[in-house]
């Protein structure tokens, strides 16, 4: 009898810990939204009705589903926005952001931004808002920028806008040269590329190893490089410490071949497994403020991170070889360079790298609303 009641007690305690009682979140105490007083974007409303907190074991799981309605209160069209999300109490020093590129929001128009996040934190936690949302940046027509730019959102949004202009131009040329049928083929190709693009799961940790159990011997693996014909920066040498499915501390030597000083370079990183499957593993950005390359000078792009590769929910992907390519460059004057469409096509990178946000949006528009909607969209600007 005693044992039976003991077992029943254990099961009951487990069930309480696992199931817990769901509670609705109070938006006033759990979320703080701060936009600067001179912000060109106004917050019209916030909806967090679907948000819940659920105790789970000794922890609390908070599912926060936030829908913000914002209005362009400036005088120029908005091309992109980035919001910074911090949960200081849960991840001290950690932060996140939600960006919406490829926008075309005219002055006075409103637009939605959705933030969905899950926090896992101890049951006993201090007071204060769970999540703080603030504006990191807004990109306007003509690459004008507003915002504190703590997350370097200016650079990301500038690159996305350049890629958008490049890809819109490409699709417009196809429409002009081959008509709607040609554009339709391009859209179908794009959707197929997006669906078939080889994907890989990556786990990142700063410094050290991503896993402590990598038993395979470590060796220094060299990068091969794809040359981009018009790239202002050339990657000339590079290596990373590799053990089985783990690579760490990628280091790449670059030379500025342009006539302008460069202060940021990002290298795309492809990994090939022993079976010959190639994946985009990630990118190696120059550390912030770490690189300044006057014309003709060389420097190093170095990241103190460890990456572990897997697929199909945990099956390790061994690294047989690595390839790098210059994926973006920022000059000291704030302008940027991205590879052109032809170079991506000729190098085979078009099927390896993700489609630009604009191409992704246009292809989705084609899928959901048809060819006429895309043609109309391309004729807008």
């Amino acid at each position, binding site marked *: 009898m005693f044992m039976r009641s003991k077992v029943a007690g254990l099961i009951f305690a487990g069930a309480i810990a696992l199931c817990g009682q769901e509670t609705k979140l109070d938006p006033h105490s759990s979320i703080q939204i701060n936009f600067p007083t001179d912000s060109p974007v106004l917050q019209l409303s916030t909806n967090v009705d679907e948000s819940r907190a659920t105790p789970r074991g000794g922890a609390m799981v908070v599912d926060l589903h936030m829908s913000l309605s914002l209005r362009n209160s400036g005088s120029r069209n908005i091309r992109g926005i980035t919001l910074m999300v911090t949960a200081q109490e849960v991840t001290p020093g950690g*932060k996140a952001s939600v960006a919406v590129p490829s926008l075309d929001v005219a002055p006075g128009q409103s637009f939605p931004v959705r933030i969905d996040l899950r926090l896992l934190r101890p049951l006993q936690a201090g007071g204060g808002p769970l999540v703080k949302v603030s504006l990191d940046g807004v990109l306007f027509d003509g690459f004008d920028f507003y915002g504190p730019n703590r997350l370097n959102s200016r650079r990301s949004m500038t690159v996305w806008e350049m890629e958008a202009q490049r890809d819109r131009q490409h699709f417009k040329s196809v429409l002009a040269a081959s008509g709607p049928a040609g554009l339709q083929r391009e859209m179908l190709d794009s959707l197929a590329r997006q669906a078939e693009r080889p994907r890989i799961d990556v786990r990142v940790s700063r410094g050290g190893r991503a896993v402590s159990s990598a038993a395979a011997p470590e060796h220094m693996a060299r990068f091969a490089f794809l040359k981009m014909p018009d790239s202002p920066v050339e990657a000339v040498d590079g290596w990373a410490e590799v053990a089985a499915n783990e690579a760490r501390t990628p280091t790449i030597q670059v030379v500025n071949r342009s006539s302008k000083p460069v202060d940021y370079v990002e290298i795309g990183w492809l990994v090939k497994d022993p079976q010959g499957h190639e994946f985009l593993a990630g990118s190696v950005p120059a550390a912030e403020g770490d690189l300044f390359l006057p014309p003709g000078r060389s420097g190093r792009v170095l990241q103190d991170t460890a990456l572990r590769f897997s697929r199909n929910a945990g099956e390790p992907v061994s690294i047989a070889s690595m390839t790098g390519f210059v994926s973006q460059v920022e000059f000291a004057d704030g302008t940027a360079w991205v590879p052109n469409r032809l170079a991506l096509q000729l190098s085979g990178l078009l099927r390896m790298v993700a489609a630009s946000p604009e191409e992704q949006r246009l292809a989705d528009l084609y899928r959901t609303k048809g060819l006429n909607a895309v043609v109309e969209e391309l004729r807008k600007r």
Partner: protein
Amino acid sequence: MTKHPSEALLALFAGGDLGSLRRWRVERHVAACTECQLEVSEFSELRAAVPAMMEPPEISWTKLAVEMKANIRLGLEAGECVSAGRSDGRGIFNVRALAVCGSLALLLAAFLLERPTPRIEPVRATEAAFLESSGSGIQSKTGDQSIMLLNTRARDARNVDYLASGNAMRARYVDSETGYVTVNNVYAQ
């Protein structure tokens, strides 16, 4: 779309506990079903969050047997000592039997109290911070705390683009409700 696998099957799949044929069948379904992908990723997270069930404590049966024998012997010897001064042997059996029964009862009680029971240990994740992508989003985790940006509104969960870049990870997708491209970034601590 085939019929959804049961919750139990999805839970076993998330834990890698299915046989190869069933795993293959569930894997095929999950690859094409957003709803099940979400469920699998929730089971995976639950496995990580719920305290690990410890292995039953190691019991040295040899040591226990030696102790049992020693206790029985001790009981018998004690009985002999008590009975040594008595001339008639009527009570000897009873004393010995009592000693043996007492020892056995003691051992049985000890065994019942110490028998292997699952013990729930507090969550003790590794302290090192890391970033990873799962079917439902990108997570930054340190110890037993984590922040995860979800991409549950993605038009097609298979077409979410993840990219590790330096000490950050990015997920890009088309929001099914707004039609806007959304880029979630989580930065390592």
